[in-house]
């Protein structure tokens, strides 16, 4: 019997049980409220007609906060094991490298269009 018990103990270490993500409703309602406020904020940016860097900064700020709340709480990333979190959240950051490449490329395209086709427009 003791042998079986130690065997069972070893099984525990090999098999990780699957965890369910159940969290209080209150938490979801609070996040829901924050998402409403943040959305209203980003709509206000347009309604008030803010322009320039302030507009872009506020848009990005509200966007990142909303995305963070959805991923962390609604999609339960805040409670997942770190190996999954890194495997899912790190690769999209590499898209930023792509963004930098395409931003530089489109500036070049704009430059050639201005230089060679400006008269034709």
């Amino acid at each position: 019997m003791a042998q079986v018990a130690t065997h069972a103990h070893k099984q525990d270490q090999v098999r990780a049980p699957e965890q369910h993500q159940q969290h209080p409703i209150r938490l979801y309602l609070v996040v829901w409220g924050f998402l409403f406020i943040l959305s209203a904020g980003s709509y206000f940016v347009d309604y008030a007609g803010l322009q320039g860097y302030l507009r872009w900064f506020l848009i990005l700020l509200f966007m990142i906060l909303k995305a963070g709340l959805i991923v962390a709480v609604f999609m339960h990333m805040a409670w997942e094991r770190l190996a999954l979190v890194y495997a899912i959240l790190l690769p999209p950051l590499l898209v930023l490298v792509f963004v930098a490449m395409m931003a530089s490329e489109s500036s070049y395209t704009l430059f050639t269009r201005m230089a060679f086709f400006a008269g034709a427009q």
Partner: protein
Amino acid sequence: MAQSVQTHTGDALERPPGLRGVAADLSSDQRAFKNVSWGKAMMWIFLLSDTFVFGCFLLAYMTARMSTTVPWPNPSEVFALTIGGQEIPLILIAIMTFILISSSGTMAMAVNFGYSRDRRKTAALMLLTAVLGASFVGMQAFEWSKLIAEGVRPWENPWGAAQFGSSFFMITGFHGTHVTFGVLFLLIIARKVWRGDFETERRGFFTSRKGNYEIVEIMGLYWHFVDLVWVFIFAFFYLW
């Protein structure tokens, strides 16, 4: 006795915190994502690939908008609606945003009630989520027909850079398709929950496997992802 060994499930193997734990999980020569069922892990990996799809669409939009010499149409005016004689900028898009966020909230609560095995509340909340999603698609259809009536085409529009139409139809069309499929799957799973499939361990018609309430959480992941993509589209396409 062999059976008792097999059915016994203990706690997950402790790992050192931080990156060391990640390395231990990934190099453990077992399953990398411990505590995570294969269904949930596969949904996450699908969502990761979908992130790249939408990332590429938004990148293409950025490239088109940055490289054109023609002024970009002002979305604030293009998507304005006249209500009661007053022109309100972006109002329809704002309503769509609030509807999608609300549907995410009801979905999150459905997951909670699913794990509490409250099948009526779970199914009702999933149905509410589906209704909100369907109304989102309906408003998008209204928005599309309004813009098409005003002369927006993938190759031209009355206000400025021609790429506006192609970017708009591509990005919102693909997102709307995602919402539509989400609504269909919400209805299918809500029906299963309502019927009590996960209490009676009824086998699925397609997979012949017994399901459980985790499918509600996995469905929720997809639905929240659709909401998440809309956050980026709203910021970059409509507000920028």
